């Protein structure tokens, strides 16, 4: 489980995350939503021990993240938005390297890499033979996801995990995370693809300008705002102008 109390991050005089307080119980898939620059990635980086908070406290699985980031990192998996990998390594080498960092025995890590390869339709020949630089974006994203799950983490942070995945892989992935949650993993899911969030997440936290503006199950948010979809709820809570008017004005300007 994740417990966040008054979590705040300042970069100089800029307030990136402001006094966040929430709890995500074990086995829940929580969507963390917000427009660009709202503070989602900064929050994930603080919760995963990558960034120290300016104030407040975050606990993951009962461990204070600021006090013992390494203990937290051993228990969690992170799919970063950047999808960064060591491109000069082959997929297999990269995954074996990640497995070693989590102290998985070599024979076990080999088995797990094979299983992830099968699940994501990555054949062993490609995994072993080609450097990641030669993979398509979707193939690389599969490797990034596999690298986050290889050590069987109890808490998983996904930041735009569907980047580059084709429809079949995306469907497999959505099934996978609901299964993982059912088996007791806690999942934080950041995405701009709201219809996926609506279908996958049991609960949604919407962040705007560093602060929480909505928190609850999707049906509850729909009922509270009277909007028909999560997309409209999101737009109502975070957009400052009428989108349709803006789009029409822009199209007119573009046409000369």
């Amino acid at each position, binding site marked *: 489980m994740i417990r966040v109390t008054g979590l705040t991050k300042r*970069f100089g005089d800029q307030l*990136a995350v402001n006094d966040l307080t929430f709890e995500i119980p074990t086995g829940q898939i929580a969507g963390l939503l917000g427009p660009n*620059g709202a503070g989602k990635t900064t929050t994930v980086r603080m919760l995963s021990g*990558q960034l120290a908070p300016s104030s407040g406290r975050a606990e993951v699985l009962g461990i204070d993240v600021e006090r013992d*980031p*390494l203990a937290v*990192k051993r228990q969690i998996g992170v799919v970063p938005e950047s999808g960064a990998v060591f491109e*000069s*390594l082959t997929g297999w080498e990269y995954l074996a*390297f990640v497995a070693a960092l989590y102290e998985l025995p070599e024979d076990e890590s080999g088995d797990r890499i094979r299983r992830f390869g099968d699940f994501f339709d990555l054949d062993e020949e490609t995994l072993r033979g080609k450097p990641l630089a030669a993979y398509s974006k979707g193939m690389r994203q599969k490797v990034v996801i596999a690298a986050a799950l290889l050590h069987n983490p109890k808490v998983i942070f996904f930041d735009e995990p569907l980047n580059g995945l084709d429809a079949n892989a995306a469907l497999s992935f959505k099934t996978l995370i609901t299964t993982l949650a059912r088996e007791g993993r806690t999942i934080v899911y950041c995405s701009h693809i709201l219809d996926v969030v609506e279908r996958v997440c049991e609960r949604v936290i919407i962040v705007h300008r560093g602060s929480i503006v909505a928190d609850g199950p999707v049906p509850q948010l729909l009922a509270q705002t009277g909007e028909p979809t999560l997309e409209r709820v999101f737009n109502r809570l975070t957009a400052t102008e009428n989108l349709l008017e803006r789009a029409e004005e822009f199209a007119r300007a573009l046409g000369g």
Partner: protein
Amino acid sequence: MNGAAGTPDAAARDRIDRRQLVELLRVYLRISLRRSTRGFARGQGSGVQGAAQALVFYAVFGVLIGIVAFDHPDVFTYALFMQSATLFAVMSATSFVATDVLLNVEESEVLAARPISARTLLAAKAANLAAFGLGIATAINFAPAFFGLAARGAKPWFPLAHWLASVLLAVLCAGAIVLLYSVLMRTVPRRGFERVAIFAQIVLTFGIIASAQILPRVLPDLERATARGALGWIAVLPVTWFAALDEALGGSHGDASMAALAVGGCALTVGVFVAAVGRLAPAFGAGLQALAEERARPPAPARAVGAGAARLEPLLRLWMRDPVERSSFRLAAAYMVRDREIMMRLWPGIAAFFVLPLLSLIGGPVARGEYFAIAPVALAFAATISLEILESSSHHAAADLFVIAPLASTMPLVHGARKAVLTCVVLPLALVLGGITLLVEHGDPSLLPALVPGLLLAFPCSLLPATIARYAPLSAPVRRGLQETRGLVLGISGLSLMIPVAFAARWAERHGRFVAFLAVELVVVVVLHLVFTLLARRRSRIAPLEEE
């Protein structure tokens, strides 16, 4: 790593994880020997090839220096000579790659969320730097270790003793650089750390080159001093301690003072490594986290950054009619003054070209000729090396734009980038050099004409990287490890072009024919420019690739 380090207190509790250390080293080695094949620069040679070229270059460098052994100096003098050359080469190359190894942005993206302690990560980075230095030290000393058997008093196992001493010296160089960065991370405020690191690296380069000038000046008296058993002030130089190790292990005249100096060298190496990796690891971890926070900070408003450039726009339009060329100029100029990663490679990388002419001023009237020879080479080199450095960037994937855009050739990109280098690097370098020369010479402007041949030569030399392979700014992955020194190797190979100009400039100045020399040089420069443009054009075609 940024967060991998965690808080200093937490990191201090963590020991080095041996398995992680081995895995990290293995990955660093693989990365340094492979070249990314993605994007615009695909298919331009392998990493192993680049590394091999660099090693061959260093081996040849070593042979040229090691020949001195056949003049039969005593073991200590020969070792001092070789270890000085090793120190110069290893320290220059190691400091050149240090920012990439220690503060790598891409790596932090991959490793930030992994459970790696600051101490393990720093140990892996230090070992990586040490292995890099070790490769160079071994290449330089491979032949000279055997040549050393010709030195007076050398025992049959001298090659082994010399190799061991040079290995320790390489390890000391790596440790010293890690220590420098760790101290900086501990003492410098978070904001502006990278600018301070750039400055520190430039100062380090100054120091290395300046210290390399010491030995040639003391060599004539050295053998007399060692014969008297009085080393004097030379005894305080670390390089002397490693030469003493050579003498103690592989020579016949090692006495107690030599043994003491040798022990001093070993103790210094261990001490520096323990201080860097042991004591300062938490500070390093906290510093990396601070850098990550700097990166996470929202960027400055675009208007503030681009305001100066907008004022120059009319001038650019006059100089460059082609809008693609102007865009390439703006892109290259922006990266040279704004992008942290490029800045950390570029400015320390060209610091040597700033120092060398200034050092030649120290020697008094005799050095006047040296200044006339070195200044042109320095300015021309600065142009070549800057272009070479500017070719690679961690944002190289964005160079796919050059393939997507309707461009038939990279030539406008080449011209834009080289004009940016001439404007932002070569011209300011000449102005600052001129200013300092005036100061040192008490307002006497008679040395200033020495800068003109360099400014002229910089025009064709800025085309050199494009004559070797298809060139576009920021289009190649950042080279790692030994490949990173390819720029230095390319530049030094380019000396064949620059040295004749340097000698001719020196001769012309001595014989009062400098104006005539400039006229001849101008003709040569125009011809070279035409030839290099033709060569570059042949490599510049952008065509659909036949295979991925």
